[in-house]
């Protein structure tokens, strides 16, 4: 059975007509949302999906009658339960906010005030709107914690935000939103920051609670699979315009618009696996730790064939990034060796010669932090060319231009600063910078996880294309199984500093699995709306068995 028939649809709670919003950058106002209509009935969950810049969050907040600094609502009406939020006074809105419309932000870690305990912040709204006394509110909060399956629901409230895990925080935030039993909740990418395995629990918790209180909700995300689990209806947005809107199942089965189709298609991308025993890099029984205490890498052995891609998957804290640091010599291993073309590499970075350094390049997760914001593209890409190959001046410029060409960027970008580029373009630049060294190995650390799916796909295809051209090997660190499917030849599964499994893609991705691999894989949301329901049922059974 599916989510939507289980719920009583009530009268319309929210009705947005022809919403127009402008954003300001460097003193110029330009449209972000160009006339969007939203209708939401009581007890209904609407999924807003689209890439960054599509204006999903902006619409979500507008549904509360709120526009972020630098944005302004310029047109349309926002009727919430008969109140025109555009005309409503600050005071009126303040009465609604928290009590009848609640907001669940993307990063709970940032959205919780570090200075106050969870319970204080949970009860704040209820108490200040005079809905409950503090005692009642706290009792209720503890109840909500229980419903959201938070551990130690009676005491967890007394903790400070930094003292609980991300998943728990996200649930606490949902509790906070629920405190006044609002008619409408805005979920703004609530699980994006979480690991897959945690995500499952949170999704489940949130879904249950909105069902229990029959709350209307707008669920904003860029992850189709997730929205498929949560929403009754899905609205696809592109650059501030609605592309199409339909009930979840229908939308998943037969999307009408091309854009939507491409969105769906992304998930299908998959590389032909090919195996090779020409090992370019071999990490052998490596232990590593920061300052001795806990081993972050525990006797890790990984092989990287030439011209192939090995994906290292694992959740945060599994030590996959540390592996990269150990290979690059940023974190000299305590034990074990790293063999490069059969020869052991000097452990420490400073002992490696220029040419060795050239052969192993690295691309980081966030181009924002890995590209020096004060250097132009010309300098960013030109430097390695000049540094490793001693090519200067016009020649160097030409080389840069050619690389830009290779990563499908227009040469006119050459004097831009990273700040003037989109996320995808930035990531392309960091790829170009790596290529400029003409390396044999590129370590890709979560290079796509910060990007929209379509962009992800473009980047992945680009990487594969480049691999064909230059026969470079990728060590591809990621937590996203879809990406793994898309790009890898072999897969290494890591958990708590240990290698759980290494082998060809097909072997790893198909049963029989080791326990952890199974957990990991099963937690990856699928496009099937019933996936979450089934999974929970299956796990429940499992528990019963155990």
């Amino acid at each position: 059975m599916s989510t939507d028939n289980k719920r009583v649809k009530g009268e319309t709670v929210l009705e947005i007509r022809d919403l127009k919003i402008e954003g300001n950058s460097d003193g110029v106002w330009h449209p972000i949302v160009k006339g969007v209509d939203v209708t939401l009935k009581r007890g209904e969950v609407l999924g807003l999906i689209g890439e960054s810049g599509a204006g999903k969050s902006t619409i979500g907040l507008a549904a509360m009658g709120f526009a972020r600094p630098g944005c302004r609502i310029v047109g349309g009406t926002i009727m919430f339960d008969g109140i025109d939020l555009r005309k409503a006074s600050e005071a009126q809105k303040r009465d609604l906010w928290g009590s009848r419309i609640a907001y669940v932000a993307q990063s709970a870690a940032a959205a919780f005030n570090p200075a106050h305990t969870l319970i204080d912040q949970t009860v704040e709204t209820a108490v200040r709107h005079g809905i409950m006394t503090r005692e009642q509110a706290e009792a209720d909060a503890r109840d909500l914690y229980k419903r959201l399956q938070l551990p130690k629901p009676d005491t967890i409230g007394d903790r400070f935000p930094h003292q609980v895990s991300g998943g728990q925080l996200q649930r606490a935030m949902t509790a906070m939103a629920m405190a006044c039993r609002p008619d409408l909740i805005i979920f703004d990418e609530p699980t994006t920051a979480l690991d897959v395995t945690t995500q499952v629990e949170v999704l489940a918790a949130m879904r249950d609670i909105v069902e229990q209180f029959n709350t209307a909700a707008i669920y904003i995300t860029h992850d189709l699979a997730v929205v498929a689990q949560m929403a009754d209806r899905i609205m696809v947005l592109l650059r501030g315009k609605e592309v199409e809107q339909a009930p979840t199942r229908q939308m998943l089965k037969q999307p009408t618009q091309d854009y939507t189709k491409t969105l769906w298609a992304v998930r299908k991308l998959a590389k032909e696996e090919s195996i090779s025993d020409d090992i370019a890099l071999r990490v052998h029984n490596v232990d590593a730790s920061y300052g001795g205490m806990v081993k972050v890498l525990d006797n890790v052995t990984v092989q990287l064939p030439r011209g192939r891609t090995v994906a290292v998957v694992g959740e945060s804290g599994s030590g996959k990034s540390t592996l990269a640091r150990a290979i690059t010599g940023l974190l000299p291993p305590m034990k074990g060796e790293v063999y490069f073309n059969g020869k052991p590499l000097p452990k420490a970075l400073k002992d490696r010669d220029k040419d060795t350094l050239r052969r192993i390049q690295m691309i980081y997760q966030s181009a924002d932090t890995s590209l020096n914001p004060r250097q132009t593209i010309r300098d960013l890409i030109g430097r390695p060319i000049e540094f490793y190959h001693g090519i200067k001046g016009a020649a160097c410029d030409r080389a840069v231009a050619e690389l830009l060409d290779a990563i499908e960027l227009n040469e006119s970008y050459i004097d831009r600063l990273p700040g003037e580029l989109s996320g995808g373009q930035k990531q392309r630049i960091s790829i170009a910078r790596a290529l400029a060294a003409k390396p044999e190995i590129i370590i890709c650390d979560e290079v796509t996880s910060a990007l929209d799916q379509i962009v992800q796909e473009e980047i992945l295809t680009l990487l594969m294309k480049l691999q064909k051209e230059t026969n470079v090997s990728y060590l591809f660190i990621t937590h996203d199984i879809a990406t793994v499917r898309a790009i890898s030849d072999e897969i290494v599964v890591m958990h708590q500093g240990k290698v759980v499994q290494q082998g060809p893609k097909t072997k790893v991705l198909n049963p029989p699995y080791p326990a952890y691999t199974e957990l990991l894989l099963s937690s990856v949301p699928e496009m099937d709306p019933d996936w979450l329901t089934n999974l929970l049922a299956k796990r429940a059974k499992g528990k019963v068995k155990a």
Partner: protein
Amino acid sequence: MHPVLRTVLQRLGLGVLTLIVVSVVIFSSLELLPGGYAENILGQGATPETVANFKKELGLDRPAYVRYFEWIGGVAQGDFGASYSGVGGTNKREVAHVIAPRLYNTFFLAILTAIIAVPLSLFLGVMAALYRNSWYDRIVNAVTLTTIAAPEFLIAYLLMLLFALKWKWFPSLSTVGETTPFFEHLYRAALPAITLTLVIVAHMMRMTRAALINLLASPYMEMAKLKGVPAREAIVKHALPNAWAPIATVVAFNLAYLVVGVVIVEVVYVYPGIGQLMVDSVSSRDMPVVQACALIFAATYILLNLSADVVSIITNPRLLHPK
């Protein structure tokens, strides 16, 4: 051990270390000072013979390092030695006795100013943050800017001109003695206090404002707004608790300044504080007093910074309640 306690102890340790370095720096630079106490006190009246007698009596004929270690040893036991000024045998003037009244005056003034300035600047700062870019904000900024820009003694003289000479509300002389009754003291210290307030409020207020506005951009402030918390309450309840650390630091800095940096105000208002004592002692080469003052200054600075650290720790749950 609780992290707060540990940090405090660490800092105290460092503080002592710093003090020692300071004492060495001061002592050696005083050693370099040309001219001696004798030459200075005797001025035109110095003759080789009298100077020699002086040096003997002060023990200045012995090598520097010996004197340093004697001195530092004494300090360790809380004995700051005797001021040169008491020479003549029978009534040595203990440095402690020379400094005590001045120190009292200085602290009196500092505390008085702090009582006015700190709440004022916090209030102004919060207001400015609350109504940022409003006229209020602009005006407050402009005024504070100019008070920062104007040299201290200019402000001092202006206030004197207005409050002492034109309207005769306060005395232009702030000379106070050990016998001055409390309220008299209060009255006489008024002008210096106001001057110093003007000087430091600007700095503290701007920092408070900056610190708060910095936080306003943070997601939890938006969250607070979207929870229906009114702006004022949001600032006080959600922003301020997280802004204490930077505010405390700047407050500490300014309080330290109130103790160590007020020479000019003391000179202008003839307020017998420790700053003037030190300057006098430097020019008259009364080493023991200078060193004692320097140590006191350094200690004040260190302790205030320490307390600022403590504040920022206890107002930061991450440090106060580790996982």
